């Protein structure tokens, strides 16, 4: 059973790869930014999130992550979940989880400054 039209596979494949490259470049950089700063106290922890470029970078990375995770979770459900109603419900749950995570992260990041 096909739940998507022709040609969408190539677009998803490209999206998955493009976001993978972005994440492979950005996430290790972000991790080293935080790891070189620990151990620290609460004020120091908050100060790490002060630079605007860092908050913008984290938000962009989370957007790339959400798109990447969407393609991956969709692939998993297409392979293992065959009842179409259940599969669509799982798609919806993934989309809501990812969108809420990105929006929540934005709110958290911009509540610090």
């Amino acid at each position, binding site marked *: 059973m096909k739940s998507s039209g022709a040609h969408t596979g190539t677009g998803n494949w490209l999206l998955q*790869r493009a976001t*993978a490259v972005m994440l492979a470049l950005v996430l290790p950089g972000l991790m080293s930014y935080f790891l070189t700063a620990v151990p620290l106290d*609460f004020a120091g*922890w908050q100060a790490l999130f002060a630079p605007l470029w860092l908050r913008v970078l984290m938000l962009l990375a989370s957007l790339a992550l959400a798109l990447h995770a969407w393609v*991956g979770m969709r692939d998993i459900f297409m392979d293992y979940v065959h009842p179409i109603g259940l599969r669509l419900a799982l798609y919806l749950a993934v989309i809501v989880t990812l969108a809420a995570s990105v929006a929540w*992260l934005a709110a*958290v990041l911009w509540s610090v400054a």
Partner: protein
Amino acid sequence: MKPVARPVYLNLFRIHLPLAGWVSILHRVSGALLFVALPLAVWVLSVSLANEAGFRRIAGWLTHPLGKLVLLLLIAAFAQHLFAGLRHLALDAHWGVGLHRARQGSLAVMLASAGVTVLAAWKLFA
């Protein structure tokens, strides 16, 4: 036309996967795990940045052995997913596709993610 009936044999304890098969299924499992971890990570971040008490609470969790174990599991999942993903990108570019090179690549993915995990375990628990 009726499809030819093929034998179905799905006893997970009797299936012997080649190394590339293990890399593949672990890539999938680690990806699903990281998906589940994303909202939890945002929640942890929000609590830790909200106020001094929240920061202390999260710091307490992350210094607890159980918290460290969860963190180590996520680090292992991330490392496996990253290295297996890089291998995928190489395969997309037709690099390392032959049987021998594909096995070498799979071994490199397993060794690199095991190395990162051991290093993280040493930093966390030693």
